[in-house]
């Protein structure tokens, strides 16, 4: 048994919330720099230069890249040998979010009830997924998910016979319909298989993977490349004002499914793809 105290978790989560909102990931920075070089639309090119300048300012001044500092999504992998002491894990995670959003001057964008819509004023609760794994470590993956892009996400229960073509068409149509709304250049997370909830969960998980990292499965990594190329042929471009950079990356995750189904979820993320990983 290895003991991890809740105050370590609170502190780590708080720090991750601030850090990912201020400092853009290297994967996104590199992808934007590549896009700046190969963009052929003059408006598109100037937009990407401004985005790079924006992330530089955010880093230098230590302020958020984007005012929508998101709803927090956390994937926790708990080693079976870990013992959490001093409190309840779920409460520690929510407290970490509360602390980080207050200390970091991050925007509180969560309403406590989807219909009554009263702001919770501390950006809690975040959405937390737990997975029990082997070992004595706690792995925390955290994202601050903006909703301009979240709102453009889509789900469909395809027929098994729709196959690869059905998958590609659904992804392309989702990106086409989203147009300028999710702040392109975007990152596209795709979850295929499982059940309706599993597909959504792995689509979200796909967004935690760096944009320059491919799936280890050859047929899936080929699908990712094919989709990226086709998406960038749509012409939508930076901010939807035309160009060859509509997406910075496509990440696909799969899961076994039922003989009768082919669930698919497309979860869209913006260029302000803020995610971080930490181990305790």
């Amino acid at each position, binding site marked *: 048994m290895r003991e991890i105290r809740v105050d370590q978790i609170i502190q780590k989560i708080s720090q991750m919330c601030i850090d990912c909102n201020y400092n853009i990931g290297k994967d996104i920075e590199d992808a934007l720099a590549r896009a700046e070089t190969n963009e052929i639309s003059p408006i598109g090119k*100037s937009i990407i230069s401004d985005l790079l300048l*924006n992330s530089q300012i955010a880093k230098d001044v230590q302020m958020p890249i984007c005012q929508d500092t998101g709803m927090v999504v956390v994937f926790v992998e708990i080693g079976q040998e870990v013992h959490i002491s001093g409190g309840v894990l779920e409460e520690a995670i929510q407290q970490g979010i509360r602390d980080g959003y207050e200390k970091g*001057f991050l925007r*509180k964008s969560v309403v406590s009830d989807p219909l009554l819509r009263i702001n919770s004023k501390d950006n809690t609760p975040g959405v937390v997924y737990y997975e029990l794994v082997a070992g004595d470590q706690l792995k925390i993956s955290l994202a601050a998910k903006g909703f301009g892009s979240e709102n453009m996400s889509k789900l469909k229960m395809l027929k098994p016979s729709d196959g690869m073509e059905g998958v590609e068409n659904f992804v392309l149509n989702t990106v086409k319909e989203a147009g300028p709304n999710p702040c392109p250049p975007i990152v596209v997370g795709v979850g295929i298989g499982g059940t309706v909830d599993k597909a959504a969960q792995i689509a979200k998980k796909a967004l935690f993977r760096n944009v320059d990292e491919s799936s280890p499965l050859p047929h899936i990594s080929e699908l990712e490349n094919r989709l990226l190329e086709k998406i960038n042929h749509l012409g939508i471009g930076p901010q939807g004002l035309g*160009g060859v950079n509509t997406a910075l990356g496509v990440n696909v995750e799969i899961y076994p499914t039922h003989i009768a189904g082919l669930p698919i979820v497309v979860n869209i993320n913006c260029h*302000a793809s803020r995610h971080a990983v930490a181990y305790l």
Partner: protein
Amino acid sequence: MSIIKIQTPLTDESIQNLKAGDQVELSGTIFTARDAAHQRLIETIRKGEDLPFELNGSIIYYSGSSPAAPGKVIGACGPTTSYRMDEMTLPLLGLGLKGMIGKGERSQEVIEAMQTHKAVYFAAIGGAGALIARAVKKNDVIAYDDLGAEAIRKLEVEEFKAIVVIDAHGNNLYETEPVKYKATT
């Protein structure tokens, strides 16, 4: 590309001259309002009460900034997606709203009303909140403080960069630009 400098309030004449694709720098006063603030504005109009700011000639910026750190005028303050405000924008255009700053497409109804009432729609760069913050010189909450991030703020801006994406003649950059870069294969 040359940059057109614009001083608020917007006049009908300056609006007529703006064309989709123009890059502008706005200086003067703009008001932030997003989803919840729009609902309240509409409610106020329905009740026949006074609005918290003079709508006639004004520019609304669809934005909910992050809190200002000590010593800062404002936090990150980029645009939010505009379509959510479409329906609520129609009565505002009727009352003299002249400019909107946001991101993303507008409904056909909004585009038509912009032609009827002579108004212009600018895009600011979504996700460039730290960069845009540099153009904000003054920032005061003037209404609906209880809405937190969604309160109405009066911003004094200098050389706020934006692009005319839909002009008062119905030209729409979201329609005309992407097709140029669409691969035909």
